[in-house]
C-alpha cells in the first residue's frame, strides 16, 4: 500500500492539517509520500521532507498551480496517482474542492471525511451531520480519500529525512482564473489548530459584542469561532463558522457563548476535550454536550470571566 498525500499549504508554509493526513495514511502501514502542488513552494516541499515518517516528497512547482485552482491541480494529482494505491488529502476547503475532481478523473469513488480506517478497503465516516457513523467498504483498486483532521492525531513535523523530487510539466485546463481573495489576517491561532476556541452565537446580538470574546481569547491564546446563526446574521465573516458545513474543530477547551447547540454546530465541535457552555436558556441543547454549563446572561458572565483569568 503506497499513499500519496496532497499537502495543504499556501506556497509559504505547510499547514498542520497535512500532518493529520499523514497520520491517517500511516494506518495502512505502507510508504507515505507527500505531494506539494503550488508555485514558489520550495520551502513547503522542504518542510514536507522533514515530516516524521514520510518516505518521499514530490514537488509540482509551477505558476499554473499558484492559487491551487481545482481544474489544474486535479490534473496534476491524477497524473501522479498512477504510482500509488491511495491518494489522500485533508478535508479542508481546498481538499474538498479538488479531490472529487481527482477521483472522477481516475473513475473511482471518493471516500469523504473519514474518521477511522478499519482496513485498506474499509473506512468509518460521519453521515447525516454526524448523527450516524457509517462503515463503508470501497471496491475500487485505487482509493481517493479526504480525512477529517480532528480524528487523527498529527505526526511530528520534524524528524523525517525524505528527499524532494521535482515533478516536470504543467497542467493548465484553461477554464478558470484566480481573481482575488479576502483573507482575514489575525494574530490569533488558526481556528482548526488552536488548543482553545471561544465561539459566539446568536446570543451575542451583534458583531460589536464579539469584542467581548477577544479579551478572553487574548488571555487564553484562543481562536474565535461562531455558530452559523451568528455568521448568517452578519456578526462575523464566514471563516469563523464552526459546524457541519463550516470548520470542524477539536480543541482542548471549547467555550460556547450564546450558542443554543443546533446539531449542525455540535457536529463541528463535539470532539473537543472539554466543552464549556454559557447560555441564559437552561434548556439549550448545548448543555447536553457541555462538561461545564453556566446558566447566565453572557453580558455579565463574559466580563467576569475575563477578569477572573
Amino acid at each position, binding site marked *: 500500500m503506497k499513499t500519496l498525500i496532497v499537502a495543504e499549504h499556501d506556497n509559504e508554509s505547510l499547514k498542520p492539517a497535512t500532518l493529520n493526513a499523514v497520520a491517517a495514511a500511516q494506518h495502512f502501514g505502507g510508504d507515505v509520500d507527500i505531494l506539494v502542488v503550488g508555485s514558489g513552494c520550495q520551502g513547503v516541499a522542504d518542510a514536507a521532507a522533514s515530516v516524521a515518517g514520510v518516505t518521499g516528497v514530490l514537488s509540482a512547482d509551477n505558476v499554473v498551480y499558484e492559487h491551487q*485552482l*481545482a*481544474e489544474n491541480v*486535479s490534473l496534476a494529482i491524477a497524473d501522479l496517482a498512477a504510482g500509488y494505491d491511495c491518494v489522500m488529502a485533508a478535508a*479542508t*476547503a*481546498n481538499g474538498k*474542492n479538488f479531490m*472529487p*475532481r481527482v*477521483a*472522477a*478523473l481516475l473513475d*473511482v469513488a*471518493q471516500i*469523504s471525511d473519514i474518521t477511522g480506517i478499519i482496513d485498506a478497503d474499509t473506512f468509518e465516516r*460521519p*453521515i*447525516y451531520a454526524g*448523527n*450516524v*457513523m*457509517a*462503515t463503508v*467498504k470501497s*471496491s*475500487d483498486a485505487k482509493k481517493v480519500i479526504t480525512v477529517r483532521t480532528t480524528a487523527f492525531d498529527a505526526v511530528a513535523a520534524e524528524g523525517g529525512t525524505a528527499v524532494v523530487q521535482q515533478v516536470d510539466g504543467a497542467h493548465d*485546463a*484553461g*477554464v*478558470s*482564473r*484566480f*481573481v*482575488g*481573495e*479576502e483573507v*482575514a489576517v489575525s494574530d490569533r491561532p488558526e481556528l482548526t489548530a488552536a488548543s*482553545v476556541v471561544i465561539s459566539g452565537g446568536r446570543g451575542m446580538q451583534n458583531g460589536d459584542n464579539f469584542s467581548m470574546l477577544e479579551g478572553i481569547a487574548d488571555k487564553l491564546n484562543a481562536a474565535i469561532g461562531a455558530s*452559523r446563526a451568528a*455568521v*448568517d446574521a452578519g456578526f462575523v*465573516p*464566514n*471563516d469563523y463558522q464552526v459546524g457541519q*458545513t463550516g470548520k470542524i474543530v477539536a480543541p*482542548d*477547551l471549547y467555550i460556547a457563548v450564546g450558542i443554543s447547540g443546533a446539531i449542525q454546530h455540535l457536529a463541528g465541535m*463535539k470532539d473537543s476535550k472539554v466543552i*464549556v457552555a454559557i447560555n441564559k436558556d437552561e434548556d439549550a441543547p448545548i448543555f447536553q*454536550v*457541555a462538561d*461545564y*454549563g*453556566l*446558566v447566565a446572561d453572557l453580558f455579565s458572565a463574559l466580563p*467576569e*470571566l475575563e477578569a*477572573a*483569568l
Partner: protein
Amino acid sequence: MKVLVAVKRVVDYNVKVRAKSDGSDVELNNVKMAINPFCEIAVEEAVRLKEAGTASEVVVASIGDKSCQEQIRTALALGADRGVHVEAEGRPEPLEVAKLLKGVITAESPDLVILGKQSIDGDNNQTGQMLGALTGMGQGTFASEVNVGDGTVQVIREVDGGLQTVELTLPAIVTTDLRLNEPRYASLPNIMKAKKKPLETFSPSDLGVEVKSHVTLVSVKPPAERSAGIKVESVEQLVDKLKNEAKVI
C-alpha cells in the same frame, strides 16, 4: 442563457436521523422527505438569474427513483421551467450521479450548471466537482456570490481563510454554500402551475450510462455520545473547575 440545476431528494432537514437497531442502515421509514437545502439554494439562484433577465430558461434535473419527481415539482413551483428526471434505483453514488448529469448536459447544453455543495444525507460534497472533471468545465464551489458576465462567470467562494474570487469560462459549474441566497417559499398558485410544467423521464441507458457501485455500506451506528457534565453556579466556580479539575487553563 440556459441554466441547469440539479436537485436531490433527502430526509427533511428537521428530522433527526437514527441508525436502525440492527445497524444495517439508517431508519428511513415514514420520515419526511424534502429537497436538499443546498439544492434549494441552487434553484433559487437560477430563478433569480431568470428574473434578472440573465437566464432565459431554468431546467431542473434529479436522479433517483420515481419519488424524486416530487422534488422536481417543488423546484418547478419555485420558478424552474421544466424538469428532467433520470430514473435510477437505490442510492446512486456521487460519481454515478455526475455521469448521469453529464448525460443530461450533453442533451441540454446548458451555459451554467448549479448544484448544492453537498447533500445533508451522505455529506459527500463531491458531485459538482466530479461533474466538472467529467465535462472539463471549471468549477466555483462553495459559492456565496455568483456574477454572470459575458461568456464568463465570477464566483465568490467561501474558503477556510475567508473569501476567494475565481472567474470561469462558460459553460461552468457552481456549487452553492449557505449564504448565497435565502430561498423563497412556493406560493399556492405556483404549486398548481408547477403541476402542468413539462417533466421528462430518462433511464440511465437513454443517457448511455451504466450505473455502477464502488462503495458498499457495511454498517451504521450512533456516534459516541457525550454525556452532559455539570452546571456550575458562577464564573468563579467555572474558572476553578477549568484550572483544577479539567486542567485546561
